[in-house]
């Protein structure tokens, strides 16, 4: 078990390094960040000066190693526009995005797991059809459109919720719902298919044969097995929401990671974009690692060798 964890960590580390190289390369792929930064009408000298100032005239490998060394020292670079350390900017923006994503995940799980279980327990019933309907429409509705619809109806027409800002729990409702809807279909279908497979298994027949109450069979025997893949996908969903918060944050004027990323992307503040991409990948890697550890704890077949 120890060696499994170790191997898993080494892979995670390698993935983090690869991600950083690729995102570093992607941002420099156009070859002339300096030209874009200098803007229209800049002279060749201006461009060269800007390139030199940001170290963009050095070979790619040198730039990367330099960056990596600084990252290891805890320095993710400075914003081109505010000269603020990117690390401070990220740490200031991260909590609200984390909060939002976590609430969204919880809401998504609270809705999708029971719905998935109910759908699997009664295949082809109205609840199964309803869950399918929820999944199909949830998967197809563009987040930004759903956000606008909610603003239009809940915020303006019926005046139930504030349409932007922060401070009250009411401000969180719409963004949380929008983000939850984006991950709910997958979690629900996964719970449903996992439950269906599990309910067909021999040990569930055995559980019925033992004369256990349906509640015990579904939750103690079936769900504990069916939930294993849901745990991994929850971690992935959380990572996805952290990166995908850009839509919700720009629409609801929330100053989180997504909004910071959007602002920085628009003005090509590449050190900040770079740092955010790296930060989010790193978080994602940590989340999947955590999911593996949770699965290990839930699944004795991995835990006890």
């Amino acid at each position, binding site marked *: 078990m120890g060696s499994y964890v170790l191997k898993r960590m080494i*892979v995670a580390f*390698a*993935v*983090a390094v*690869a*991600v950083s190289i*690729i*995102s570093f390369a*992607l*941002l420099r*792929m*156009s070859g002339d*960040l300096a030209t*874009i930064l200098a803007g229209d009408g800049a002279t060749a000298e201006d461009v060269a000066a800007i390139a030199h100032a940001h170290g963009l005239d050095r070979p790619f490998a040198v730039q990367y190693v330099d960056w990596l060394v600084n990252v290891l020292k805890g320095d993710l670079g400075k914003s081109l526009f505010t000269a603020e350390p990117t690390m401070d900017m990220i740490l200031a923006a991260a909590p609200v995005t984390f909060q939002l994503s976590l609430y969204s995940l919880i809401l998504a799980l609270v809705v999708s797991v029971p719905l998935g279980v109910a759908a699997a327990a009664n295949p082809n019933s109205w609840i199964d059809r309803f869950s399918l309907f929820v999944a*199909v*429409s949830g*998967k*197809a*509705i*563009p*987040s*930004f*459109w759903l956000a*606008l*619809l909610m603003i*239009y109806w809940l915020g*303006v027409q019926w005046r139930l919720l504030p349409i932007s800002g922060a401070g009250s729990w009411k401000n969180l409702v719409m963004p949380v719902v929008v983000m939850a809807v984006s991950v709910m279909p997958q979690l629900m*279908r*996964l719970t*449903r*298919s996992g439950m*269906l*497979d599990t309910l*067909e298994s*021999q040990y569930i*027949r055995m559980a019925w044969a033992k004369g256990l109450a349906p509640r015990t069979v579904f939750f103690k025997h079936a769900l504990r097995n069916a939930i294993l893949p849901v745990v991994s996908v929850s971690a*992935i969903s959380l*990572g996805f929401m*952290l*990166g*995908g918060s*850009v*839509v919700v944050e*720009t629409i609801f004027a929330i100053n989180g990671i997504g909004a910071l*990323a*959007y602002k920085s*992307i*628009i003005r*090509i503040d590449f050190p900040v*974009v770079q740092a*955010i*991409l790296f930060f*989010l*990948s790193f978080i*994602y*890697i940590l989340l*999947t690692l955590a999911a593996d550890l949770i699965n290990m704890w839930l699944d004795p077949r991995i835990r006890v060798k």
Partner: protein
Amino acid sequence: MTMPERPPSSEDMAEIMPLSPARQALLQARGHVGLLVGLFVLLVVMVSAIFAPIVAPHDPYVQEIATKLSPPVWQEGGDWAHILGTDGLGRDILSRLIYGARVTLIAGVGAAIISGIIGTIIGMCGGYFGGRVDDFVVFLINVKLAMPGILIALSLVSIFGGSLVTITLILGLLFWDRFAVVARTTTQQLSKRDFITAAEVAGASSRWILMREMLPNLMNQIIVVASLEMALAILVEATLSFLGLGIQPPTPSWGLMISEGRTLMFAKPYLIMIPGIAIFALVVAINLIGDGLRDITSPEGKG
């Protein structure tokens, strides 16, 4: 000599009433309401996109300030000249929707094809060669999954500019992972089958086996994934355009139409409703097709 544990499956039924697989698929397709509805909607959108100049009642770029913000025909003040109304610049919404379908479909189909080719090749190599190659493929997939897709797409568009071609390419490069996962596992399963072993024994080259033996057998699943990825690509294209880092005005794109209508949405909600419904309906349709194809091609498939 054991009793089947489960009740007779559809395969047992097939034994009782033999039907050719193709005929059975056709029969099932005919009975699959979701698939039929999806195909119908997609067909309507495709036909109007292809024949846009004929179908569209107006030029999508022409601004008629005199008739700007004319509501759709079913609302008060609506006019049959502009069935779905006009936008803030007096452009005909139906026409923009029809031309926008071209953008949407090109981005969706293009991205699905590009990512399909990349992902399938990567996945097949991993599944077929195994060992180190497979470790590397799994590593690549993990790296891909760890990158925040939307932010990378936004960054790249902001660097390269938002033309339809760059956006399609970027989406294509971003969504190959699911193809790779499916191609890899299916190839792994197929590798153990007799016909592959036979081809190997007969001395066929890896390339020949992958292209001639594996690929045709993967096609069912690849097409299912492609339809689901196409739906995703359409959503992401709309999102990018909505955020202003996608298709650039005045090109009609559904996401852009919503973005443009946003400032007036409280007074004129139809400006965001109509393109939103279009995106929603098309994506639902494509997902229904994907789910339907999966149901038909793999009777065991659930969820």
